[in-house]
């Protein structure tokens, strides 16, 4: 196998898949940093985002990319709503209660998606797209958009976290919640902000999975394990770590096909997850321990 074959069939798809995982993993990592629990409904929230975009495409007749902002806003609103209706009442309880509740939320979201959009496979647009050739590297436009959108969204988030007053308040609450309270930072607002960001990125993750493959009601649930593997691999609480972890998990999954049957591709994420938890639970970039 030559280098271009390796790049075109494994590395490029791996980076695209990794970018999709990264968008979800960033949300998982933020939720853990601020609220200190593992959010198991994250995958199904991504499914919801993907189907909200589909609804915009079919009902408004807009192009999929124009539907993305609608899906981001819609999913962010749903995420804040779920927190208000369910998770907020569990804040004082042990965290495992909220983790289990989030599993229930995952099932509820999936059921709603199946009732509204059915269980059949759907797509944003029909037809086969041929990849363009750039000096031997073959890549489709939608793949370029996926990678660029991930970089732009995460870059904007990083700017927000390091430059703006409320972004810094989010970091302060992640760093030392007690002192944040003593400084007069309103933790309720920080929590809402966290859900807006996590929900929005989640929608983008589901949307780009739908753009690059198909829409299925189980699409997000199947991403949950790789997204958690990415967040833990990068270091929980570290945004840049979640991106790094996402890319590594995505590329590792695609490369694994070279040595194991492709049906076992998903086992790669599981192997990375287990390995990191055993060997270095703080992740590559020294995060919190989940």
């Amino acid at each position: 196998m030559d280098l271009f074959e390796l790049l075109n069939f494994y590395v490029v798809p791996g980076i695209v898949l990794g970018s999709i995982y990264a968008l979800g993993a960033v949300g998982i990592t933020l939720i853990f940093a601020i609220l200190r629990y593992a959010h198991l409904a994250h995958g199904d929230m991504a499914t919801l985002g993907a189907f909200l975009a589909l609804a915009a495409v079919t009902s408004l007749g807009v192009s999929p990319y124009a539907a993305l902002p609608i899906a981001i806003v819609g999913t962010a609103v749903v995420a804040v709503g779920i927190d208000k209706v369910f998770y907020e009442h569990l804040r004082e309880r042990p965290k495992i209660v909220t983790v289990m509740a989030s599993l229930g939320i995952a099932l509820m979201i999936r059921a709603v998606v199946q009732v509204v959009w059915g269980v059949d496979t759907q797509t944003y647009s029909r037809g086969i797209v041929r990849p363009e050739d750039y000096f031997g590297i073959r890549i489709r436009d939608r793949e370029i958009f996926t990678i660029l959108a991930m970089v732009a969204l995460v870059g904007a988030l990083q700017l927000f976290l390091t430059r703006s007053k409320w972004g810094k308040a989010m970091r302060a609450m992640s760093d030392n919640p007690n002192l944040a309270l003593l400084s007069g930072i309103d933790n309720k607002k920080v929590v809402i902000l966290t859900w807006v960001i996590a929900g929005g990125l989640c929608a983008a993750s589901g949307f780009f999975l739908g753009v690059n493959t198909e829409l299925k009601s189980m699409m997000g649930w199947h991403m949950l394990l790789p997204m958690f593997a990415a967040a833990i691999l990068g270091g929980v609480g570290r945004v840049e770590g979640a991106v790094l972890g996402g890319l590594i998990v995505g590329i590792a999954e695609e490369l694994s096909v070279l040595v194991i049957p492709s049906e076992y591709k998903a086992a790669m994420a599981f192997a990375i997850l287990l390995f990191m938890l055993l060997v270095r639970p703080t992740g590559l970039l020294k995060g919190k321990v989940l």
Partner: protein
Amino acid sequence: MNALLSMENLTAGYGEADILQNVSMTVAQDEIVAIVGPNGAGKSTAMKSVFGLLSVRGGKMLFDGDEITGWAPNRIVQRGICYVPQVDNIFREMSIHENLEMGGFLKTGDLTAAYDRVYELFPDLKERRKTLAGSLSGGQRQMVAMGRALMLDPKLLLLDEPTAGLSPKYMEQIFQICRDVQDAGVAILLVEQHAKQALAFSDRGYVLAAGKNRHEGTGADLLADREVAEMFLGG
């Protein structure tokens, strides 16, 4: 004397147990007051109850004309009391400057004057303002913690064992900074393990034991008191 803060017959604690029983104290404008006593005497509890961090079961607290018993911490901060906990009192993964910015979170508008005032008190911090607070030495961390609390221009600063674990050199420096803060018109109530040094430098002191008031007086009087010396100060 006009009291800025007064605790009257305060009873407070965690869970079932009352750690403080009928404790009364006052802090006047521009005064440095130390709370000393053996381990487990309720020194830190007294401070936390001022700040609304645990349930007050009896008595009341007045601050600058308002009854503040039972207020939430962020309301107390806004009213003019800032608190520096003994441990975990900085944002480790944020720069010195960002720590101060978070201290001034509730202030609307320009923070320049507040930064200038804090950096004037702690010139060392100004030079290293971009440094992550978690990478600093113990003494410098304490300065960041105090600087953060001073950003809102409080009338009263609560310090929980500000010199715990510091070398004598830094202890002197922290005490000197306390005096500078006092000169800037801020009253200080501090809990101290180093009773001798703390009483020597404070205007007044309270000796707590087993959750009750034992002695009170000027720092010099308490130091001269035989009983106090034997009980808590090691003779």
